């Protein structure tokens, strides 16, 4: 199946890329790694009239440290994050998250920001036109029903990004630019929690950079992921945990964030409350794992059944906390 046709634009600056987006609005899509976009186009889910190649914009492929914080450019590949010694040493949870995305060749192609900006997915959406035509349009494709949940009142397509949990748990922000100006927003607020339109981004905006606060002493983290084929699939459930342990052996800061169990990344607020100021005991880990289980709201629309995925959130959260706490 060939890709639908489009015009291919090659901006030579970020300003030019932004002006292309401003000109063509919804009809234009950015292409960086292309690993999600081109599949969606092949499936007829997107048919942009213009692709704006971000790769011709200079100075967007970088990982740098500024005043102790880390900056990741819009064109930085997942493989860069996976391999870079400074990242592996100071932000090992990010390297671990990156190496769990898809498979190595896709990490060479795909970008960190592209993974953050993944569209939500659903067994009834990510299919060929031939497959989808038998059922008619759902909320996600402009229809008035949900095929995954009978009688569903809104789109519950699942957010399956691997990078967002770790980056949110680290307290990251994103710098979003448009031809009208720029804004910096917490990464967690990039997600609307709506399956149909998961990103709080206007068609003329670009996520130019991710900013990760510097690691504090005693900080450690871990990611865990459930997938059908350990070598390549999207997560069916995932969790990132970032903990800080102070000199007295107390957990001074905690972030627990889930993926693939809702329409956006799920920040487990109760986990932070339970952990902060406490010694991490086996009993407490069980309570936090329970809180993560409660926060997870998977539905039967990706890979494996929802109740299994939800139960696995408990297991993965426990594992991630134990690993993170043990690592420090």
């Amino acid at each position, binding site marked *: *199946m*060939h*890709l*639908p*046709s*489009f*015009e*291919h634009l090659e901006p030579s600056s970020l300003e030019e890329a932004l002006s292309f987006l401003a000109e063509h609005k919804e009809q234009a899509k950015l*292409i960086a790694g*292309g*690993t999600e976009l*081109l*599949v969606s186009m*092949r*499936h007829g889910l997107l048919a942009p009239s213009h*692709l704006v*190649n971000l*790769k011709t914009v200079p100075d967007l492929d970088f990982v740098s440290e500024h005043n102790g914080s880390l900056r990741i450019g819009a064109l930085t590949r997942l*493989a860069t994050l996976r391999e870079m010694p400074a990242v592996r040493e100071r932000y090992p949870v990010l390297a671990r998250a990156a190496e769990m995305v*898809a*498979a*190595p*060749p*896709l990490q*060479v*192609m795909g970008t960190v920001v592209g993974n953050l900006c993944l569209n939500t997915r659903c067994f009834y959406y990510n299919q060929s036109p031939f497959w989808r035509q038998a059922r008619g349009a759902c909320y996600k494709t402009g229809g008035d029903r949900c095929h995954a949940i009978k009688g569903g009142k809104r789109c519950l397509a699942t957010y399956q990004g691997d990078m967002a949990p770790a980056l949110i748990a680290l307290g990251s922000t994103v710098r979003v630019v448009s031809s009208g100006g720029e804004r910096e927003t917490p990464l967690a607020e990039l997600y609307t929690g709506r399956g149909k339109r998961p990103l709080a981004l206007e068609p003329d905006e670009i996520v130019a950079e991710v900013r990760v606060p510097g690691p504090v002493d005693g900080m450690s983290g871990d990611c865990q992921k459930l997938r059908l084929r*350990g*070598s*390549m699939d999207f997560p069916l459930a995932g969790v990132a945990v970032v903990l800080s342990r102070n000199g007295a052996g107390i957990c001074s800061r905690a972030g627990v964030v889930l993926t693939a169990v809702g329409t956006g990344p799920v920040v487990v607020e109760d986990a932070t409350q339970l952990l902060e100021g406490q010694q991490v005991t086996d009993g407490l880990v069980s309570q936090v794992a329970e809180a993560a289980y409660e926060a997870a709201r998977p539905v039967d629309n990706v890979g494996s059944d929802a109740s299994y995925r939800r139960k696995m959130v408990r297991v993965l959260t426990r594992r991630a906390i134990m690993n993170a706490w043990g690592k420090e």
Partner: protein
Amino acid sequence: MDKRLVQLRVNGEQYDVVVSPNETLVEVLRERLELTGTKMGCGEGACGTCTVLLDGKPIRSCLTLAVEVQGKEIVTIEGLAEDGQLHPVQKAFIEHGAIQCGFCSPAMILTGKALLDENPHPTEAEVRQAISGVVCRCTGYAKIVEAIMAAADSLQGEGKHNGRT
């Protein structure tokens, strides 16, 4: 939709090709350059049979637009043999029975070569990690892993004889 003249460097040779923006690299390799060693499998980036090396790294040519790889070094399976001699990874695949139906073999061999270029002495785990992006439905992977490990040994031996490292 404007067609565009692009210069592709494939296996050390330059090709001038007029392509549409929506043509993927695998389509151009197979249908224009008739380099059909690169296989088109799922077309969605999942199976990995369309793997080629782009500037030395294995990538999915089904998810790569031909207009975006101008000036980059592309290596396909046809480019591995030198002077009629198969590449050590290719020889090892034959010797170890790592080829059955053959559909994943170009991708597996290129992935193995890219790994050995970067890491001449990989562990078995590193080999398995490297080829994890390519699906094989026949071999069960064991013989492919054996072949790449054996190729690492033979490249090392060759290196000693030829002064290559």
